């Protein structure tokens, strides 16, 4: 990878993540607005952003609760949406050294964006970039949630501003540098195909985890 020749450090993680943080902050605001409107109160949404730190799962759990669903349904929906973090966790595991509590804390900072930014190509990950990027995104997410809870009635729904299209574009920007070989392009195409085919027939979250099966293309040399 281009930037990977010398050591990339924490600061690189912070700098590379700042532009994304603006989108994540906006997404955090929308979570705060929505959770408050769903009757979660003011503190619970902020605590949830601080402990779960995974946008789509939080939106899903909140919408289940506000629609009168059971606690179990909400938890299952969130677990399915976050299931991709199991293989993602395995991918960064070799680069997280240190005592178990330090590995545990680093692991909490792994979200799609910090993971993609810390990728150095060929399945290698930079733990310092991950830490810098993860902390920046964490601040944006929890800060955004707090703003949404406090000023939701003034701000309104940020999706009006096209924020829902900001995320696919953001992921596209993170995907582009990963497409370095024919094999990685094939994996991307297959991953997208699996996800789209399963979306109408599987519960939310399952299509994304299932897309990780596309990396089995790596068995063939």
């Amino acid at each position, binding site marked *: 990878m281009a930037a990977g020749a010398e050591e990339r450090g924490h600061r690189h993680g912070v700098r590379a993540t700042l532009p994304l943080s603006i989108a994540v902050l906006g997404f955090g605001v929308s979570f705060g607005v929505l959770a408050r409107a769903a009757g979660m109160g003011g503190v619970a949404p902020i605590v949830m952003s601080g402990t779960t730190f995974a946008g789509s799962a939080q939106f899903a759990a909140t919408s289940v609760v506000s629609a009168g669903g059971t606690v179990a349904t909400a938890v299952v929906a969130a677990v399915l949406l976050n299931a991709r973090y199991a293989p993602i966790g395995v991918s*960064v595991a*070799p680069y*997280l050294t*240190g005592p178990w509590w330090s590995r545990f804390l680093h692991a909490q900072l792994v979200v799609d964006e910090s993971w993609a930014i810390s990728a150095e190509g060929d399945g290698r990950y930079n733990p310092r970039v991950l830490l810098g990027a993860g902390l920046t995104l964490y601040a944006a997410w929890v800060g955004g949630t707090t703003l949404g809870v406090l000023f939701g009635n003034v701000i309104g729904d940020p999706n009006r501003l096209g924020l829902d*299209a900001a995320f696919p*574009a953001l992921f*596209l920007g993170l995907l582009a540098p990963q497409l370095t070989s024919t094999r990685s392009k094939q994996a991307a195409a297959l991953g997208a195909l699996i996800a789209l085919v399963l979306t109408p027939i599987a519960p939310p979250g399952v299509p994304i985890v299932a897309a990780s099966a596309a990396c089995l293309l790596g*068995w063939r040399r």
Partner: protein
Amino acid sequence: MTDTWLVVGLVGGATMLIKAIGPILLGGRALPPGVSRLIGLLAPALLAALVAISTFGYGSSLVIDERVLGVAAGGIAVWRKAPILLVVVIAACVTAVARALL
């Protein structure tokens, strides 16, 4: 209210475990070469899946709406090597404008 806190606690706890399981069990150990070749393809596969679902997904159906225009514009910006913030702003603006006009 109690249900809310139960959901917050359980979802938070479950997510922490899912994220931590790999690093806690395998932390610092190299994966076998065969496995790391697969793991190298995980980022393109998962990121492409996220692009696809966040562009076309609407609950459990697939739709084509204003987001497609925004993402297409963002895609052109990515291809022209625009900085990521510009990519995101272009995608959001195109979508918002399309939504206001269409």
